[in-house]
């Protein structure tokens, strides 16, 4: 078999082998049980709580959790605006990069607090080292906040009736210190020994072998690259993200960075199983996610390895696949794997340019973000999947004529309304945004923000809003998106698409947790069976196809037929 395909399989198997024990560890962390890192982190966390005047033993209701989450995000928003709009005057700026314009700072701050990391700038020329490090802070805390709400969900799904769902600050801080930090540190160490820079010196000037003078950007990159992969943030140090040979120098780093994209998201699924002592349920969720993921992955690898049909017609040798926008050291199969993983998990880092993917591969990357629940982002992927489960439970209940129940709790009108609103928000933001932008560019062709004509130009806009609404952050980067229109519209969409899909599921879970627990009986719909798994997959397929098929037909599908 081809060595590229073998390495793809290896990467996936290693990911699974690491995710299961990690899931067990995460479950112990959230359950408050002792772990081997207690020695290091117990005193540090105690110090933090004391300094911040937080009582980490105080139990919170779901509403208090949401208030704590929103409050701390407001603090982060103002801090980000302050730093980015003044970084030109702040220290650690050896390259003399300027402060950001207000609209770009608005977009960038929201982008990083929402775990999106959409970047309407290029890191090496638009950020000082101080700015980069501040953004790295958001990469930790936004991922930690996402994982904290997943922990609230875990707590709410237990077999009991209670409104006490743990302490937000404790979940948040433990996610950052005990899960994100150790993994990031290991990844960063692997990166620095593979040639990724970690220095505070500015640009270097070299003379190339052919005699030209070239400037080379560097910086404290390794630390940030590790957390942007581990925390499903995706915001790279350099403009081209992990396609950059310093950000991702070789096969080993590419494999490590690829594994860390879905690692914690998959581990959280298993953590749910260990936490609730329902391992079968975790395997059902994992299986549904994996089937969906493979449905996107396999055709994409096939298409990218087959090359661009329009270039095939020129009669050259395309055995290495479609290489526009790809790096030789990764090859087309590993690039396709990354493209699908990064879009399914809301990561958004890239190791190839998605704008140059063949049309249907571009469609699968968009589908991954439109579903946004096949592994999904840190914590929030599981919340999105929870919404699909609630809808599937409801539909199954209707089909057999029973009151829908999930894990011993009755699902009623109020919960269903919330679930449907949360689901509908995503297509509304994506399609509404794309429609408005399409109309604007039709009225004002002189805005000229498209890098490609025709169907592909439409795909560039569709992708941008899909990415913003999925809190993904990758892009069809040809789009000239550093304009007030794109900065502000994407900023608003990222904000709504981050917090409403957190508030909704937490509200549902919180309301259900307060309801009476009904023990399992012969009439209970069992959620941990293959039948129910197929049901969830069918619900996802139908809902997403109904919402997005027409838009995809206008973009990537039309493009496919025009060049096939």
């Amino acid at each position: 078999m081809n060595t590229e395909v073998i390495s793809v399989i290896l990467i996936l198997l290693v990911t699974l082998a690491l995710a299961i024990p990690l899931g067990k560890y995460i479950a112990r962390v959230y359950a408050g049980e002792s772990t081997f890192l207690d020695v290091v982190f117990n005193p540090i966390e105690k110090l933090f709580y004391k300094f911040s005047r937080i009582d980490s033993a105080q139990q919170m209701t779901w509403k208090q959790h949401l208030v704590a989450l929103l409050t701390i995000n407001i603090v982060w928003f103002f801090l980000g605006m302050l730093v980015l709009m003044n970084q030109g005057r702040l220290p650690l700026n050896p390259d003399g990069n300027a402060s950001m314009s207000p609209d770009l700072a608005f977009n960038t701050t929201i982008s990083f607090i929402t775990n999106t990391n959409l970047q309407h700038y290029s890191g090496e020329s638009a950020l000082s080292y101080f700015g980069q490090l501040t953004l790295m802070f958001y990469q930790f805390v936004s991922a930690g906040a996402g994982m904290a709400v997943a922990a609230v969900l875990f707590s709410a799904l237990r077999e009991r009736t209670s409104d006490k769902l743990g302490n937000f600050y404790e979940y948040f801080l433990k996610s950052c210190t005990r899960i994100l930090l150790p993994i990031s540190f290991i990844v960063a160490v692997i990166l620095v020994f593979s040639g990724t820079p970690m220095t505070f010196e500015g640009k270097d000037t070299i003379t190339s072998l052919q005699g030209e003078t070239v400037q080379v950007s560097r910086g404290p990159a390794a630390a940030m690259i590790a957390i942007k992969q581990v925390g499903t943030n995706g915001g790279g140090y350099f403009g081209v993200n992990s396609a950059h040979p310093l950000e991702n120098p070789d096969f080993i780093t590419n494999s490590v960075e690829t594994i860390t994209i879905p690692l914690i998201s998959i581990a959280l699924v298993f953590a749910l199983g260990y936490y609730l002592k329902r391992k079968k349920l975790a395997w059902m969720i994992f299986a549904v996610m994996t089937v969906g993921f493979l449905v996107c992955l396999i055709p994409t690898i096939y298409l990218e390895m087959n090359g661009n049909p329009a270039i095939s017609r020129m009669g050259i040798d395309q055995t290495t696949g479609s290489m526009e926008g790809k790096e030789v050291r990764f090859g087309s199969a590993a690039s396709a794997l990354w493209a699908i993983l990064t879009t399914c998990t809301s990561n958004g880092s890239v190791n190839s340019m998605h704008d140059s993917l063949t049309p249907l591969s571009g469609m699968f990357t968009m589908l991954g973000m439109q579903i946004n629940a096949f592994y999904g982002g840190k914590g929030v992927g599981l919340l999105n999947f929870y919404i699909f489960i609630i809808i599937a439970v409801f539909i199954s209940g209707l089909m057999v004529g029973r009151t829908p129940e999930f894990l011993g709790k009755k699902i009623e009108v109020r919960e269903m309304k919330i679930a449907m609103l949360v689901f509908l928000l995503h297509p509304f933001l994506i399609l509404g945004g794309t429609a408005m932008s399409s109309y604007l560019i039709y009225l004002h062709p002189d805005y000229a923000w498209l890098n490609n004509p025709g169907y592909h130009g439409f795909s560039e806009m569709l992708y941008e809003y899909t990415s913003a609404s999925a809190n993904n952050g990758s892009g069809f980067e040809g789009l000239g998106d550093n304009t007030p229109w794109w900065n502000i519209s994407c900023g608003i969409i990222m904000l709504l698409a981050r917090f409403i899909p957190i508030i909704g599921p937490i509200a549902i879970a919180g309301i259900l947790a307060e309801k009476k627990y009904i023990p399992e009986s012969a009439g209970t719909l069992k959620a941990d069976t293959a039948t129910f798994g197929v049901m969830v997959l069918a619900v996802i397929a139908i809902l997403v196809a109904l919402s997005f098929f027409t838009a995809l037909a206008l973009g990537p599908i039309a493009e496919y037929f025009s060049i096939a």
Partner: protein
Amino acid sequence: MKNQIFPAILLSLCCLVFFCGIYTAAVWTVAQASSNQGKGEIIFYGSNSQQYGFANIGQAFTADKYFWSRPSAVNYNAAGSGGSNKGPGNPEYLLQVQARIDTFLVHNPAVKRDQIPTELVTASGSGLDPHLSPGAARIQVDRIAKIRGISKERLKNLLHKYTHKPLFDVFGVETVNVLELNIALDQMK
């Protein structure tokens, strides 16, 4: 919300110090033990090895006496990486690829069109791709042999020496670092 605001600010400050300060410092300290202290791996070249380049940063090689590197959308500007971001069916882009094929054929008359590997006429994602596939280097051997007056056999041996195999021969792809190869080429007698 009012009684949450101070804990939120103070906890954020703690995290700022811990994740930006201590974590960064720890990684930086470890980096001091890596090659060139985390400033990027470098290779020396030129007479008396006075000049140097970064091993992982591709350079523009357009002269016929060197192995050409891949086309770059940013002309190998290592302070502003970037891809072309051209869609697969963009007519303007396809004309550009066609022009690159024609140019290559003019400079390499011994090569047939269906032998040209696609990576030699398409731009990389970063614009700084330091590598070629061995096939994309091999196809340039005829041209270089003629210009430098070195036998094809010796060039092929050189290429073989500088080909990086996949990990354990099984995982990943074969690559050639173009800068390494061209430095070795200049040192051939």
